[in-house]
């Protein structure tokens, strides 16, 4: 739906508007830019700070500003935002947030294979599982710009720590207010059954939700019996999620991250286990090794077994 858009642009445009209305917003960047960031830099020189290529300090300064009552956005490349400074996040955005109100939103750009040709240093296959491990951090993993943008507004009023993991490439919309989110996004519920089926259901997150939908709806192989659930915030409302999943006989998880170590697959496996469900379960994602092959995202997906043909192969 619509012209493909980059989530980052939608988020930064919205933040620009929010910063005009709310002088408690600070925007920190670890030297990461974006076309829509320029207007923020120009219009709010006192509330935009480039901390330099220094993610550890990015997080600590964000925590300090939040302690002083500011609403802080901390922006960096996703891999480095979550892994270079994981300990800073743990100490001052997770442990401290259990005692103090800290309105900080980390915005990580370039999850999964967004930086496809940049190789394994930039591939981001771990952020979801390691951030899920920390208490008190609400994670948004949007499938499109509409979801990402909506999260910004929600995040501003949520007095805790958040991590918004953005894809780096342009994508069309999977959501529309008319079709699937009449009441808007519910970041506490955290998921949406985008396509109703009755046999197998693909549970995915981020841009792979596009892949899930395409796999289940492509004209030649359209399958009415395949459902698609998009998880857009973590952790979602597990009771409601299980209720939806339980209407299917087979659950396929799909993610652009390492499998078996705490991502979507682990979350769903735990959920099934908690309900003593013996449902058929298939996990699709990146097996635990880094990819040195040079190539675009489609190529890397094929190498990793998360292309459409491979997904369809698992349909019952």
């Amino acid at each position, binding site marked *: 739906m619509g012209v493909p858009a980059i989530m980052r642009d939608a988020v930064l445009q919205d933040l620009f508007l929010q910063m005009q209305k709310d002088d408690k917003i*600070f925007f920190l960047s670890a030297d990461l830019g974006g076309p829509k960031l320029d207007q923020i830099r120009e219009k709010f020189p*006192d*509330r935009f*700070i480039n*901390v*330099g290529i*220094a993610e*550890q*300090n990015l*997080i*600590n*300064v*964000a*925590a*300090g*500003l*939040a*302690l*002083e*009552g*500011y609403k802080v956005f901390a922006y960096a490349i996703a891999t480095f935002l979550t892994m270079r400074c994981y*300990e*800073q996040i743990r*100490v*001052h955005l997770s*442990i*401290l947030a259990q*005692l*103090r109100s800290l309105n900080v939103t980390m915005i990580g750009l370039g999850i999964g294979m967004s930086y496809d040709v940049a190789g394994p240093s930039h591939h981001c296959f771990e952020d979801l599982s390691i951030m899920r491990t920390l208490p008190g951090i609400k994670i948004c993993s949007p499938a499109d710009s509409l979801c990402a943008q909506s999260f910004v507004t929600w995040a501003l009023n949520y007095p805790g720590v958040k991590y918004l993991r953005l894809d780096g490439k342009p994508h069309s919309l999977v959501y529309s207010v008319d079709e699937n989110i009449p009441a808007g996004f519910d970041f506490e519920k955290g998921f949406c059954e985008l396509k109703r089926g009755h046999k197998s259901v693909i549970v995915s997150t981020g841009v792979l939700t596009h892949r899930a939908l395409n796999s289940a709806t492509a004209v030649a192989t359209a399958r009415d019996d395949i459902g698609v659930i998009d998880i857009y915030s973590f952790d979602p409302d597990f009771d409601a999620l299980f209720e939806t999943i339980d209407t299917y006989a087979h659950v396929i998880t799909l993610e652009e991250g390492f499998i078996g170590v705490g991502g979507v697959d682990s979350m769903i496996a735990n959920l099934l286990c908690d309900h003593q469900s013996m449902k058929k379960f298939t996990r699709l994602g990146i097996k635990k090794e880094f990819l040195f092959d040079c190539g675009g995202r489609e190529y890397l997906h094929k190498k990793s077994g998360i292309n459409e043909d491979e997904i369809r192969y698992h349909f019952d």
Partner: protein
Amino acid sequence: MTKINFLEQKAQWIRRRTLELHKFAPETRIASSLSPVEVLTTLYYGGFIKFDASNPLWEQRDRVIISKGHGSISLYPILADLGFFSVCELERIGQEGSFLGGIPDPVIPGYETVNGSLGHGPGVAAGMAIGLRAKNNPAKVFVLVGDGELYEGAVWEALMFSGHHRLNNLILIIDANKACMLDFCKNVIDYHPLKEKLESFRWRVAEVDGHSVAQLYDLFSTITTTTTPITTTDAAAATARPLAIIAHTIKGKGVPRLECDPLSHIKTLAASEVDALINSVQSGQIELTEK
């Protein structure tokens, strides 16, 4: 009694209370906690810290970040004495249900940040200093680090940042007790000259005998801040700098067998040894705050 005499006696008393706490909870880092006694005593009792003990998060308070958390058990008796929490809590240190642990966290009234993992304080303090400046709040941010802590790279990210942003409401106090866990710093990685490094990062630097209450008092008396926000075009900006105080101290100060021990960090004193030290102080045999 002069102010200096009062502070010297107070520091002696704090040193004794700190030793007592170590007796109650031998897992506490006693050597690291004895080096900043005069610094903390002078700051809190010398009138250099604005605080409201009944309202620890009072908006106008000066922020005190204890980045070397393990080495600040000596702050417990100060905070209790000043009314942040009941002195009865001191005896419960390390016991079940007590909020006074071996490494302090902000569950203790008077502590601002999570401590224990070294190198985080300067960055968080810089964020607070920027925030205070943006709010036109004249409060100051003090941050206490150890000299061994300066090995953490995040410290230097924060030092660069604070110098560049001319955070003159930020005061870094380096408890330079010359040792980290396994050895004297000069044998681990000798990073001296430190003063010149800090100055090259656009900090104002003062060096002081960290066990001399008189020197500390005089130095702290010179700290001024401006309530006006500094912009890059402001004439005042050219001279505005954060202040680093290198407080030369002795790790394990007051306990002769710790004072020259490169492994003092991990040394625990037996209860009988603590009693003997305290008794000898009380009977005047050892002057615990001698210079």
